[in-house]
């Protein structure tokens, strides 16, 4: 199903893509704006600013305005998010004796599991359903093996990361308890 949609998106004629863009940006500019704002970190000023401005943009100009904002959000929002993550990583206590390190470990565990499941399960599902695309028997079996390896690796790595992070989190909690006891 997903493969068919992706194939369709890439092989569709240019006028179909243009029509889809007009429909998406023309009929649903507000949802598109909300979606594009997800690129900005939570609580960033730009979030409220764009939503406030949207009200005052004339209906005729909204599609272009939203497309412009969406493009800017993808570039700037992602950059700011990446910078925030980098700062958080540099401030992270790698020896694990604070509450924030334990929280970060838990976030890493959940994130790793989510990535594993979201990459691995669809890959397995596509594999079970026969790949979703027309393949020759030779290329089909090769593709199946690659899909299985990718899915297995994604789930395996994410599970390992999750286990390591939970262990790390537990260690941090023990260290914190020990520190509290020493203080008392």
């Amino acid at each position, binding site marked *: 199903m997903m493969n068919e949609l992706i194939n369709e998106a890439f092989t569709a004629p240019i006028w179909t893509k243009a029509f889809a863009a007009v429909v998406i940006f023309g009929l649903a500019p507000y949802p598109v704006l909300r979606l594009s704002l997800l690129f900005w970190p939570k609580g960033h000023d730009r979030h409220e600013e764009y939503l406030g401005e949207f009200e*005052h943009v004339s209906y005729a100009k909204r599609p272009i305005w939203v497309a412009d904002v969406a493009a800017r959000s993808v570039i700037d929002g992602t950059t700011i998010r990446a910078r925030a993550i980098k700062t958080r990583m540099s401030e992270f206590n790698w020896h694990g004796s604070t509450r924030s390190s334990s929280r970060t470990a838990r976030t890493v565990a959940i994130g790793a599991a989510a990535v594993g499941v979201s990459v691995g399960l669809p890959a397995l599902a596509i594999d079970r359903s026969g790949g979703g695309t027309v393949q020759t028997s030779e290329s089909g079996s090769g593709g199946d093996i690659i899909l299985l390896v990718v899915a297995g690796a994604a789930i395996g790595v994410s599970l390992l990361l999750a286990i390591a992070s939970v262990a790390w989190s537990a260690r941090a909690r023990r260290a914190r308890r020990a520190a509290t006891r020493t203080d008392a």
Partner: protein
Amino acid sequence: MRVAIAMLADPMGRQYGYALSQTSHVRSGVLYPILDRMLEDGWVTDEWEMPEESGAKRPRRYYTLTDLGRRELGAVAASAKTDPRFVGRLGWA
């Protein structure tokens, strides 16, 4: 440069992003990074107008030129007036 001229048209007033993009004919994708840089450099200050003040549904962000901003933008605009790249392009005589 267009943004500078639009802001200097009302140097003491407060202006919001969309109005600035309309008067300066600069796309929003270009305008907001410029405003960000001006904020960082202390050329403008920002303030929020709450919905209860304006009657709008959402808060709105306004930008006001600071003394430094007026000076700097004035200097930029003055130098651009003699710059051959801008002569006849920015609505100046």
